[in-house]
């Protein structure tokens, strides 16, 4: 056995033993919904001592961000080791210790574009779950046309003064800091006057207001800025070059959204349908038209899983056109919407219940409605198709 493989085997054994020893039993059950997720931050109320302990233990190992460098609070693990950690956590059914836009979005941007001082200041509190971040991108007049954003940042010496409004800021009412796209040069062409800046939400000029969605929950806010203050040392990348950072991050976001709803634990769609609708004498789903719909959906879902594998392999090998992330986002989110439609069709009137215990507080219906946002957030399906048409198919504009 090559030395590297032997090292990985011993890493796996150590990891397994450590997880067995340190993951509290309560953290080994499937999360039922958003309420079970640990988001951390200044104002977070832990659901249980076990949830807090699990975060602290994992953060101490650097395993909330296993592949970040150790000097920024990460685990310093290689790609292979990170994969093993994930596998071992899955084996145990261990919950994610920390959900965080700091980890998923800001972290990768700071690692690529941040100064050493910015990394030192912001990454370790993200890794420890001490600061919760939100993303200030979309505005009422800048959705698909994100680069048309108008929130102004005016130079005031050592800081910027910020005025304007953001919308669809995820959990802005619960976040401690925001990473935000602002206009620093209103006279330049629209992509060239945008900057990427970080600032504290705990100040008088920042006012988030939750938006109630069709699913009944309010994960997003409108966020208003009135003479809010952002220190210049928190400008990421150069002034007026924020669009580079935004594009880099959108790629991450698209991959993240396209992966939603595809590897969740629990029952498969056919299992749910058989339970709800029943089976004929030969074991076939009793509703033949629904069975056909589901069977053809499952073909596409299986093919898309293969495409996910291919996308990752090609990405690792540096063989991808970056616009292929748009294709993945488009296909994955459309598939997830379709899946939720079929879940609702299979569930019938049971799946319509909105609050009952039987329905887990209307989980199917709320997930179904929430899934409709997948093809809107992070760039609509139509924007993704535009990108594929222009950057891959090279159709003229």
């Amino acid at each position, binding site marked *: 056995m090559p030395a590297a493989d032997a090292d990985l085997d011993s890493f796996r054994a150590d990891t397994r033993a450590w997880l067995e020893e340190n993951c509290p039993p309560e953290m080994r059950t499937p999360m039922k919904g958003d309420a079970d997720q640990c988001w951390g931050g200044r104002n977070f109320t832990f659901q249980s001592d076990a949830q807090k302990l699990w975060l602290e233990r994992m953060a101490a190992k650097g395993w909330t961000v296993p592949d970040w460098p150790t000097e920024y609070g990460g685990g310093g693990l290689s790609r292979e080791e990170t994969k093993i950690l994930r596998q071992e956590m899955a084996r145990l059914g261990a919950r994610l210790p920390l959900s965080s836009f700091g980890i998923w979005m800001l972290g990768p941007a700071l690692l690529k574009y941040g100064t050493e001082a910015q990394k030192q200041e912001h990454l370790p509190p993200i890794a420890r779950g001490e600061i919760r971040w939100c993303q200030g991108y979309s505005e009422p007049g800048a959705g698909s046309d994100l680069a048309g954003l108008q929130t102004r940042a005016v130079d005031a010496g050592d800081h910027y003064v910020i005025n304007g409004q953001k919308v669809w800021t995820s959990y802005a009412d619960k976040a401690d800091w925001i990473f935000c796209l602002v206009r620093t040069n209103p006279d330049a062409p629209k992509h060239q006057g945008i900057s990427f800046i970080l600032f504290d939400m705990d100040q008088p000029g920042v006012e988030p207001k939750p938006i109630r969605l069709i699913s009944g929950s309010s994960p997003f806010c409108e966020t208003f800025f009135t003479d809010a203050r952002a220190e210049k040392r928190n400008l990421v990348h150069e002034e007026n070059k924020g669009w580079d950072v935004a594009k880099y991050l959108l790629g991450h976001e698209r991959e993240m959204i396209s992966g939603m709803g595809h590897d969740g634990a629990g029952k498969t769609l056919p299992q749910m349908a*058989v339970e709800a609708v029943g089976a004929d004498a030969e074991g076939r789903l009793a509703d033949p038209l629904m*069975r056909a719909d589901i069977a053809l959906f499952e073909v596409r879902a299986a093919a898309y899983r293969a495409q996910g594998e291919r996308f990752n392999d090609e990405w690792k090998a540096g063989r991808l056109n970056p616009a292929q992330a748009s294709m993945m986002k488009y296909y994955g989110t459309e598939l997830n919407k379709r899946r939720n439609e079929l879940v609702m069709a299979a569930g019938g009137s049971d799946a319509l219940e909105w609050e009952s215990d039987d329905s887990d507080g209307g989980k199917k219906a709320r997930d179904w409605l929430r899934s409709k946002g997948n093809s809107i957030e992070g760039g609509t399906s139509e924007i993704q198709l535009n990108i594929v048409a222009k950057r891959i198919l090279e159709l003229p504009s």
Partner: protein
Amino acid sequence: MPLYLTEDQEMLRDSASGFMAEKAPVAHLRKLRDSDDSIGHDPALWKEFAEMGFTSILISEDEGGLGLGHVEAGVVLEEIGRNLTPSPLLSTGIAAVAALQQGGKHHRDRWFPAIAAGDATVALAIDEGAKHGPAKTAMSAERSGNGFRLTGRKQFVVGGHNADMLIVAARTGGAPGDSDGITLFAVEKGAAGMTADPRRLADASIAARIEFDGVEVDADAVIGEVDAGWGPLTALLSAGRAGASAELLGVGQGAADRTMAYLKERKQFGVIIGTFQALQHRAAHLYAELEVARAATLKAQQLLDAGSSKAHGAVHTAKAMTGLTAQLAVQEGVQMHGGVGMTDEYDVGLYMKRARTLAELFGDANYHADRLAREAGY
């Protein structure tokens, strides 16, 4: 193994692509069709396929072949699809070879050298109705003397009127619907009591309806074991379906490429029609479907080559997905070409005809989705 082609496989693709473009582009199909050809392919081209090693791609090196796998077979078949090249490669070099690899050395000794040399073709007599369903095989094979008597009808036997050998699925036991009790036979051209009725199909290929009226074969005509033909038949069908998936991918990609080129040159209202967002979005959607179908196909080929137990399901997925996707590609292709898409002069209509034929071959998307559902327990 990463889910993309290795350097060697890319080299093979480049060589197959250059070969088809030079020797057998769409013009070759037109010429064959318009000359009232009665064979269904060009035997001289088949010899050249052999010289390139394509006909022996799956045959082991020990037995005189290239000893490559389903990924490589797929690379060649995709180029065949892209150029609509009429060829018995899928039935002979891929599906039949896969069956004979499980079916007795005497068959391989008899047929592999001739296949490798481009001197023989093999056709597959599986289907008995308009829709594929191998377990439904009803044709009877009664014991008779030292061998068997075959009685029944087959259809959609591509190249069956001309093939040197037919692989025939018949029933030695069980009842239609059972997978047990089927036996595969190698029946040579000209066997007494066998009548082929060749029919030209929409895509200009020729498939025969074949009548077996008490055809006598020896015991050593059996491929594999009596009553246990499902094993080699599954090998045949898995190889055939993975190969047909690759060919369908080539057909879909070929149609899509022509359509993209047309969108970039055709003008209406004084502008290139490819600037219209209504068409751009449909083109981009088609691109996504083709990429997903490509991944499903490569996954199935790699799993077949690895001998994985997951190959079976992956092949069903690939054949269903490529069938759906190639048909989307040709329908969008004809529509986006507008009026000229309806003319025989433009190639896109030929792609439409080929896609439907291949989608039907070895089971359409509904067949494979149904099989996947059955195997998943619903």
